[in-house]
């Protein structure tokens, strides 16, 4: 079966541009997470959805970051007015569990802000 997919895989944005990153989770998975991974570091939590409800957005670094999952499946992470410090790999993960359990990660979107 299909795993988690993300698009685009690579994105180059000029500083100040807006970007939208898409995540297609595994069908039927209720939980969806976004993480940010800097080079040489572990993933850092950004936000969590259970179905369409955003239950935690405490990891979003600023109000320029916004995430949605309107129908409880596909999710979009939007970054407005990108800055150089936003350059990172953005990982999406989904899980069939409502409690902490195995997460299935997508390949990530590598964002480079120039």
């Amino acid at each position, binding site marked *: 079966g299909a795993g*988690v997919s993300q698009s685009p895989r690579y994105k180059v944005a000029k500083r100040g541009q807006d970007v939208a990153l898409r995540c297609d989770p595994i069908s039927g998975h209720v*939980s969806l*997470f976004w993480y940010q991974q800097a080079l*040489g*570091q*572990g*993933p*850092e*939590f950004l936000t*969590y959805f259970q179905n369409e409800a955003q*239950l*935690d957005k*405490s*990891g979003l670094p600023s109000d320029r970051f916004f995430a949605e999952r309107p129908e409880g499946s596909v999710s979009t992470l939007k970054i407005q007015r990108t800055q150089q410090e936003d350059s990172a790999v953005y*990982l999406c993960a989904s*899980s069939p*569990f*409502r*409690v*902490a*359990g*195995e*997460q*299935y*990660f*997508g*390949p*990530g979107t590598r964002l480079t802000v120039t």
Partner: protein
Amino acid sequence: QQPVQSPQAVILREGEDAVINCSSSKALYSVHWYRQKHGEAPVFLMILLKGGEQKGHDKISASFNEKKQQSSLYLTASQLSYSGTYFCGIPGSARQLTFGSGTQLTVLP
């Protein structure tokens, strides 16, 4: 709070064993382990639960120390395919994982 992993990197020959540690300032109730190869997604390996039960890989095991502030991942008879960066993750209140900074494992033939 981010868990601390050690060592940062380890190189071993195929067939050798390795131990990766994950330490926390608080008692751990469960620890998740993932492996990430360069340019790829992290892949789930196993969950270690507070009673010592393990869910996951059949050739990799894990344990807590006595105070349950450290978990160790044991890789026995390493294979070339074991190379990658290993992350431990501690569940938070929102089911998210707080990951350590990783241990880079290289298995040589």
